[in-house]
């Protein structure tokens, strides 16, 4: 018993620094944020208690609905398509050998190291309605040059394509590592048994790469729910209320409109959404794992 208490004390001493920092820098601000969401505080300073007024106002706000819809739409456009494309590219790169493989991999990974502002400038010029090189592709198809970032149906798919181009390198790298971990002899044995390429993929590669796929999907989901920079940059000066996403809504409320309490309420809502979606996804993938 004495030993057990000693062990407990030691454990406490070891986790105390983490608990303190975690409580001070994460739990405490979170509690403060929830408290703030029930006030009409500006960005700086205190406000008066207003109960659920911020929440009811938010539920009636068209722009908030846009933000939820756009964020969901963006997740739909990027998470699964992006992961699928990464797997395809990884399968192709895995067939290459030596320096050629390194070079091709580097090409795919290069965009990932760029800051978002650079990504924005590159694509803004590529798609520029007067001078953009991509208009040479758009014009013959559409009959006229199109400003992608000012045409509502094009906006989210456009941002999604750029985001996949930008962040795909990381998923490719993960998949490649997973593919290298599959023992060669499984394929050799299958080949001796007369398995086709498709059978080898569905029976060997796909089941063995599944944990990596789950990892990629999870990372992508969390990343894309927090979409902000690309949408903010490409939409600035345009119809920002229609192309609004969740984090941008929080940013605008707090820093442009000077409404700290309202922004906190929006942040609480985003927190709830992410929590619910994460639990759902966890349940879904667990069910799949038990099969």
């Amino acid at each position, binding site marked *: 018993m004495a030993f057990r208490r000693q062990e407990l004390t030691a454990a406490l001493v070891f986790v105390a620094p983490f608990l303190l920092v975690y409580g001070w820098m994460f739990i405490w601000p979170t509690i403060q944020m929830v408290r703030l969401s029930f006030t009409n505080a*500006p*960005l*700086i*300073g205190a406000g008066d208690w207003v109960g659920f007024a911020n929440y009811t106002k938010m539920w009636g*706000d068209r722009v908030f609905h846009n933000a939820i819809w756009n964020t969901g739409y963006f997740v739909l456009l990027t998470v699964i398509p992006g992961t699928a494309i990464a797997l395809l590219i990884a399968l192709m790169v895995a067939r290459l050998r030596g320096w050629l493989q390194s070079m091709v991999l580097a090409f795919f990974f290069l965009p990932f190291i760029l800051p978002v502002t650079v990504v924005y400038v590159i694509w*803004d010029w590529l798609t*520029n*309605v*007067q*001078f953009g090189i991509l208009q040479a592709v758009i014009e013959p198809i559409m009959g006229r040059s199109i*400003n992608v*970032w*000012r045409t509502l149906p094009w906006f989210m798919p456009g941002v999604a394509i750029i985001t996949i181009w930008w962040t795909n390198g990381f998923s490719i790298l993960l998949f490649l590592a997973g593919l290298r971990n599959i023992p060669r002899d499984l394929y050799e044995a299958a080949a001796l048994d007369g398995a086709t390429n498709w059978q080898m993929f569905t029976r060997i590669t796909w089941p063995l790469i599944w944990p990596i796929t789950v990892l990629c999907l999870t990372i992508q989901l969390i990343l894309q729910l927090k979409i902000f920079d690309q949408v903010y940059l490409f939409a*600035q*000066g*345009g*119809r*920002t*209320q*229609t192309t609004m996403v969740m984090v941008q809504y929080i940013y*605008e409320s707090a*820093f*442009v*409109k*000077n*409404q700290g309490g309202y922004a906190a309420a929006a942040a609480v809502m985003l927190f709830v959404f992410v929590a619910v979606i994460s639990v759902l996804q966890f349940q879904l993938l667990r069910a799949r794992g038990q099969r």
Partner: protein
Amino acid sequence: MYKMTLKAALISTALLGTAVQAQETVEWWDFLGGGDGVRMKTLIDQFNTEHAGSITINATTLDWGVPFYTKVQTSAAVGEGPDVMTYHASRIPLAVSQGTLSPITAEDMAAMGLTAESFAPATWDAVNVDGVQYAVPFDTHPIVLYYNKEMLDAVGLIGADGLPQNLNGIDNFNAALQALKDNGAEWGIAQVTADGGFAFRTIYSMLCQQGGDIGTDGAWFPGDSSAKLANAVGLIASWVENGYNPSYTDYPSTVALFTSGASPFMINGVWEVPTMTDLHAKGELFEWGAIELPVWFDKPCTYADSHSFAIPENAGKPMTPEKRAAVDTVIGWMLQNSLFWATAGHIPANEAVAQSAEYKAMQPQATYATLTANMVFDPKSVNAGVASPLFDAAGNAFTAAMNGEVDAPTAVQEMLDALNALQ
């Protein structure tokens, strides 16, 4: 021996101490990143050289727009703001409501050697809120009409005085655009159409030319201003529809269209003057000029804002009288030496400089400087000013309207709804 060394060290440290005390370091923040930022650095270096041993400016350049103002608010609230900073006059009402700015007193103005009469009435009014002065105007930066002199001359639009003529009135102006296009110009005019927030400067000028007004919270478009605003948006939309102005075109593209000779006119801020001056000096630009916006409607009127100097109210850290004196010296010196700042295109706010013979010889600055008599500033609302909810609402409503996706009256109503929703 050891003791003597120690004594000497102590004395020299003490001497050093007094020297440091007499020297004031003024922390300076600005948002000037472009060509005007380079010119501001030159001014700061010159100040530091002239005041070596007494005052040193320690300057930091931050991101323009929302990031700058957010940082100023938050740092002043915890006493970590600078001693002096550049500030858009249009953003002062919000800062005052947040208690971010320290009022400029009569003693400050006396120390700077300035009075209310040193400034144009509209500029002076822009830095005052409820009769209290919160900043010292450094410049006025309106939008102007840039023109390609060679292309205008070819169709007879340059008068005997060497300046553009026959541009007033919508019919005259459109006829000029048509003539220029008939003579081979790809476009008639380059006005930003991809960013309704930026275009708001032009639209607001056109509204003011009709005697219309933008009010403040509660009564944003007083009287028949809604209809007049729709006229203004409709004029730009008609340029796009008739092929005079390219659609959905962003800021850098308008500059490129103008400097490459694809468009003989461009509406843009005076801050693009250095771009033209530098290109022309390198022999890469045609003969060009810039003038006050034409009178499309009833009277001359141009949107303007002012870069001014403000002193933050650092919470819990009142400024020492010595520091305040140093800041006053800095602002006063900058105002006296703002002639160099005029090379960045901005009109010096200090009338003594704007009326000087040197400024009057500066072209095209002196030509458009007359517009200071016909300026309109942003309405005094916490929701107005550069990069404000008002600009944002304009971006949302007018971007689609200028390009013919929505008709102008609908867009104006949309903007009004957005503004009314701002609590």
